């Protein structure tokens, strides 16, 4: 096989890192099990009439809300923009990452802002906002604990909800210790306490707060933030200026739609019934209000999203970034997030990244999937991620993006096996063809080892059963004779 691609190098590195794998497996499993338990509870509550609906019902409603929104996205974007302006906010449209970063920079320059604080947001990771600002000499500090950890480590998030999922306590204590200039203990109290004290300082002195948004309500122009640490609230209330970068698909039409979404998001993400903090921001500070920014900017980002609209992949835009697909993914469980190389890892990243950024760099991600379907089963929007992976593989193959030996093998199988006569002939002679690789066990049974070419991928780590000398379809004739003789 050809030399290792960067993707395979990252996979190798991840698989060799026991710390990483232990940490990822521990947390992903924990989140998976908590989600499962809380959804089972929800079903019981719904049964008693004490919930808005059971999981399947809520999922169907959420799907319907998003399907409707995406079908009329331009109208809802227009409505949301009008409302935000009416509320006193400023609306910007960004075609791509460069434009979005440029808009943020210009707002900062106009205000003479140099220091920014940011609450957790995947979309600003997607556009690499921090790098863009730092390149202009500005300071931007992550205020979500996990994001803060990876910012100190100069990494990207390894999970869309738990950015530092791959870090052990010891590693976190070392990162914080380097900032503190002293050794720190590894208990939660010490680590969270240190981060809180350091970040409070940053909040107080920040010129601009940057947020994303989990939802934007079109009818009211309300930005919604779901967090557990309250950093979203501080970011959007302490600094004098707030900039929210929002993927253009984040809309829901009405306030009441939030009830459905908020029942699903925390449960799917962390197994919580409700989130700790939920912020609804409708415009900047009004006269007489004690806090909130004097200036509020909303940047709606496209960055490839509109190319997904009205295609067979449209439902992918209904993703609420809960991370349930990552937590249930058996491949993510082994690799963590960085091996994917994309900002969005796991099943949603495997589908979304090539859709947003094309195949050139990302077609290989499509291979990191066994098509088990756990993602779709757990997704609160029922996004058929594994089906989309198959469709995308289909597109990649149609463009000739495939290992040539693999292609030859699959084409040969198709040729032979769609002709039943040839199929039978091949099946009957298979054991002869693999003779050089056939080994005998002590009990006389046979197996294959050291297979050549791409099949070595199998036998390097696994033995392979030897093909039967008499395939079943031959044995069938004997069974029939036996039956006839009775």
């Amino acid at each position, binding site marked *: 096989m050809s030399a290792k691609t960067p993707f395979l190098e990252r996979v190798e590195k991840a698989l060799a890192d026991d710390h990483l794998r232990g940490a990822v497996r521990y947390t992903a499993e924990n989140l998976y099990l908590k989600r499962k338990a809380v959804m089972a509870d929800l079903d019981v509550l719904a049964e008693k009439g004490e919930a808005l609906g059971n999981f399947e019902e809520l999922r169907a409603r959420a799907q319907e809300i998003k399907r409707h929104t995406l079908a009329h996205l331009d109208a809802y974007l227009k409505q949301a923009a009008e409302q935000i302006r009416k509320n006193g906010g400023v609306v910007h449209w960004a075609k791509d990452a460069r434009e979005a970063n440029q808009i943020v920079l210009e707002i900062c320059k106009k205000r003479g802002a140099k220091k920014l604080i940011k609450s957790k947001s995947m979309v600003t990771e997607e556009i690499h906002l921090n790098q863009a600002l730092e390149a202009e000499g500005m300071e931007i500090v992550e205020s979500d604990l996990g994001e803060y950890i990876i910012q100190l480590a100069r990494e990207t998030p390894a999970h869309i909800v738990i950015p530092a999922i791959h870090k052990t306590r010891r590693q976190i204590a070392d990162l914080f210790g380097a900032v503190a200039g002293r050794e720190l203990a590894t208990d939660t109290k010490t680590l969270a306490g240190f981060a809180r004290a350091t970040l409070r300082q940053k909040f107080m002195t920040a010129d601009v707060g940057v947020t994303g948004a989990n939802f934007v309500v079109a009818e009211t122009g309300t930005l919604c933030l779901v967090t557990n640490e309250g950093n979203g609230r501080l970011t959007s209330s302490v600094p004098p200026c707030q900039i929210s970068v929002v993927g253009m698909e984040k809309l829901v039409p009405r306030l009441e739609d939030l009830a459905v979404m908020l029942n699903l998001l925390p449960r799917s993400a962390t197994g919580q019934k409700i989130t700790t903090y939920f912020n609804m921001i409708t415009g900047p500070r009004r006269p007489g209000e004690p806090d909130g920014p004097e200036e509020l900017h909303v940047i709606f980002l496209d960055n490839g999203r509109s190319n997904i609209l009205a295609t067979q992949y449209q439902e992918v835009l209904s993703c609420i970034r809960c991370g349930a697909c990552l937590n249930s993914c058996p491949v993510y469980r082994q690799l963590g997030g960085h091996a994917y190389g994309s900002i969005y890892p796991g099943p949603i990243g495997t589908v979304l990244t090539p859709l947003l950024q094309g195949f050139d760099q990302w077609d290989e991600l499509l291979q990191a999937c066994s*098509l088990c379907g756990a993602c779709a089963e757990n997704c609160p929007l029922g996004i058929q991620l594994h089906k989309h992976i198959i469709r995308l593989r289909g597109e990649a193959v149609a463009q000739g993006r495939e290992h040539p030996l693999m292609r030859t093998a699959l084409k040969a199988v198709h040729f032979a*096996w769609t002709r039943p006569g040839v199929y039978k002939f091949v099946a009957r002679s298979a054991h002869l063809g693999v003779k050089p690789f056939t080994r005998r066990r002590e009990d006389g049974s046979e197996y294959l080892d050291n297979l050549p070419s791409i099949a070595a991928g199998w036998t390097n780590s*696994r033995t392979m059963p030897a093909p039967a000398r008499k395939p079943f379809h031959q044995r069938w004739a004997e069974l029939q004779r036996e039956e006839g003789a009775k």
Partner: protein
Amino acid sequence: MKVSLFITCLADHFAPQVGEAVYRLLRRHGVEVDFPEGQTCCGQPSWNTGHLDDARDFARLYMKAFAKSEYIIQPSGSCAGHVRYFYPEMFPEGSRERQEAIAIGRRTYEFTEFMVRVLGVKDVGARFPGKAVFHNNCHMQRELKVQEEPLEMLRCVRDLELLELPRPDLCCGFGGAFSIKQPEISTAMADDKVDAIAATGANLIVSSDLGCLMHQGGRIEKRGLPIRTLHIAELLWEGVQQNVG
């Protein structure tokens, strides 16, 4: 009652005894079995690797071979899942082939699904000493939604201790071509699964999927672990003979 057997390419090539076990168990319960000519492979390898047109050819072949069959029994939840869940997707909505695909999906059964849901047979009268875990294939649990049926059958086997497998939902990493295209990830997943199984104290992995069994068994053999892998039909048939004999 009359059924047709779809042996699957894997069982045909690597485990004819599984086909024989299915045949004999069905016969034992008074079912007539035929084996339609012209069957080869359900086409999952093509579909899963993105050779979508090729996969359609396989679907057409299957639909032709089993056009007259009332029940089609497969010793594989994965292939049965592929037929029932993905065949309809391959043809345009409203087309005749789509209708055919939906209909043939409804007539296609995984072996234990057929035994329990259609025949109402859980106890085949088997005895099989051992400590087993059941590994459920991904298509079988998620697409066919067959979870309890094989367990119910195994619970009826005398002298068989059925152990609980933690995270039974977790894929073992076979995934067809995935196991060759991404051998490192696939093997890491196999180890994860096999370690969990070894920790239960089981000496037997039972499944209704030869792919998963080849993958786990092949890994187990390389690692030299004392665990045997066995298709559920094979276990049941061996068990019936042991009980009678």
